[in-house]
């Protein structure tokens, strides 16, 4: 019996790609005959780890396909035709309305994604959702099979690598407070609210502060342009957009951060929250969609979207050492829930149960 993972794009460093690579390692370690197949493969990924989808051998009906579902792709329509028992690992699809004002292509992809998810409702024999929020999304899209919640596997060890020395040298010291948000520049991340909260923070609480918006804006140039205009019109200084940067540079920004501020309006999981926690950075976040669940009562979660309050909370966590330490304690405890060992064991037990209960697949 083979267990293959299938996804449209295996990219080094993104959440879905990391999850697939971590699962691959876990499956191999536990003696499974496994391989990742993808339509597009990042060249940095070793050829023995992943192969192109058109090289996928014909599977037997007892083989298992772990299909990573996250976006609009033709693969969504090819999956039902493949032999084998199918498990869908659902990573969420950003609703198209977020992209509509900015990019028709991204909007269409998201629409295509929803159609694909709905199309696969009858195909999945079992689903794993990154969060209860994603599980609910699947239920609303007509999935009637068993769905378990399993967090994404996060390569925490990678975060211990050396951060970019140049960035550290440039920004470390000088008495500045650094506010950081990581994540691609996209309307659902609501970077405008991060900027606005920073504007209030700088104006009312701490003029010696900076904001780093770490992430690529590829495909979202119009939203990015609008954000830049907003910064200019507000007249707020020290807002830095990094654009696409290397992993070591991202690590440097985490190393510099005094507060991680997330005002995202739609997340299926929100890995950066856990990344920030792993760097022991206090998190201030707006509790919407899966953010609430990933925070799990840790950090500083705001029930309302209020940028002035966010600024006040940032000031509190920066200036009140005792409060900061208590916040960090909650985060350390929460982070332990996402321990890869625990998540890996949970995944293996779900997989074994599925294999046992679905002995004979169908076409």
């Amino acid at each position: 019996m083979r267990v293959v993972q299938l996804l449209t794009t295996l990219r080094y460093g993104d959440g879905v790609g990391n999850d697939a690579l971590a699962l691959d390692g876990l499956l191999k370690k536990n003696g499974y005959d496994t391989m990742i197949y993808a339509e597009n493969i990042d060249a940095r990924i070793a050829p023995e780890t992943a192969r192109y989808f058109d090289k996928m051998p014909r599977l037997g009906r007892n083989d298992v396909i772990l299909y990573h579902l996250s976006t609009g792709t033709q693969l969504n329509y090819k999956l039902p035709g493949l032999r084998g028992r199918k498990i869908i690992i659902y990573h969420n699809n950003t609703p198209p309305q977020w992209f509509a004002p900015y990019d028709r292509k991204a909007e269409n992809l998201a629409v295509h994604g929803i159609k694909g998810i709905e199309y696969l409702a009858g195909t999945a024999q079992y689903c794993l959702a990154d969060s209860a929020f994603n599980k609910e999304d699947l239920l609303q899209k007509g999935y009637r099979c068993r769905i378990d919640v399993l967090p994404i596997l996060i390569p925490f060890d990678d975060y211990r690598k050396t951060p970019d020395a140049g960035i550290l040298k440039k920004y470390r010291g000088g008495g500045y407070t650094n506010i950081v948000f990581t994540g691609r520049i996209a309307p659902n991340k609501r970077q405008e609210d991060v900027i606005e909260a920073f504007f209030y923070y700088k104006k009312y609480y701490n003029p010696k502060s900076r904001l780093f918006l770490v992430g690529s804006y590829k495909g979202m140039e119009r939203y990015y342009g609008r954000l830049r205009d907003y910064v200019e019109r507000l007249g707020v200084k020290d807002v830095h957009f990094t654009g696409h940067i290397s992993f070591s540079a991202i690590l440097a920004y985490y190393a510099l951060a005094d507060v991680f501020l997330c005002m995202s309006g739609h997340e299926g999981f929100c890995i950066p929250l856990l990344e920030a926690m792993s760097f022991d950075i206090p998190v201030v976040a707006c509790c919407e969609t899966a953010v609430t669940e990933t925070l799990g009562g840790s950090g500083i979660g705001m029930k309302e979207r209020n940028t002035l309050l966010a600024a006040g909370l940032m000031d509190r966590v920066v200036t009140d050492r005792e409060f900061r330490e208590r916040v960090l304690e909650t985060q350390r405890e929460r982070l332990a829930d996402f321990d890869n060992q625990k998540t890996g064991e949970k995944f293996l037990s779900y997989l074994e149960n599925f294999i046992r209960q679905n002995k004979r697949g169908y076409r």
Partner: protein
Amino acid sequence: MSDNLEINIEEIIQKIREEIQEKGYKETDLSFQDIPIPEISLSPSAQALSVSPDDLGKVLDYLSANYEHDILMPVSASNPLSGLVKKAVRKVVRFLFYPVLAQQNAVNGGVIGVLNILAERYEGEQKAEQTIRELQERVEKLEAELRGLRISASENEGTGEA
């Protein structure tokens, strides 16, 4: 979350709210919705032809946004038959160009990452140069002031004024 770790965020929020009220912190009248969505009209040729230090940011923005080749870009065709042929050709040769494009994308991504870091450092150096210039001007000004003070001090000594 353990009960002993629970933080009453609502209580803290209430205090911050009161502080905001007391100190009269006001929300800005400018809303993000007031900012028009810009049109992006950066053509690669125009950008590549003239790169001056002032354009560096713009060119880098363009490169950051376009470094990745879209492997699955839609096939455009004037009629359905030619579209079909184009799609077939793409399918036939994809074994050849998919890996090449993937490799090129990775290289481009790396290059852009490095360029962004270099640009940051360049910007830092510009700022440092500016700071050095300002400090030099300040030193010169202070030296001039000091010279003036010394002269007047020696004059005072000469006249015996207190």
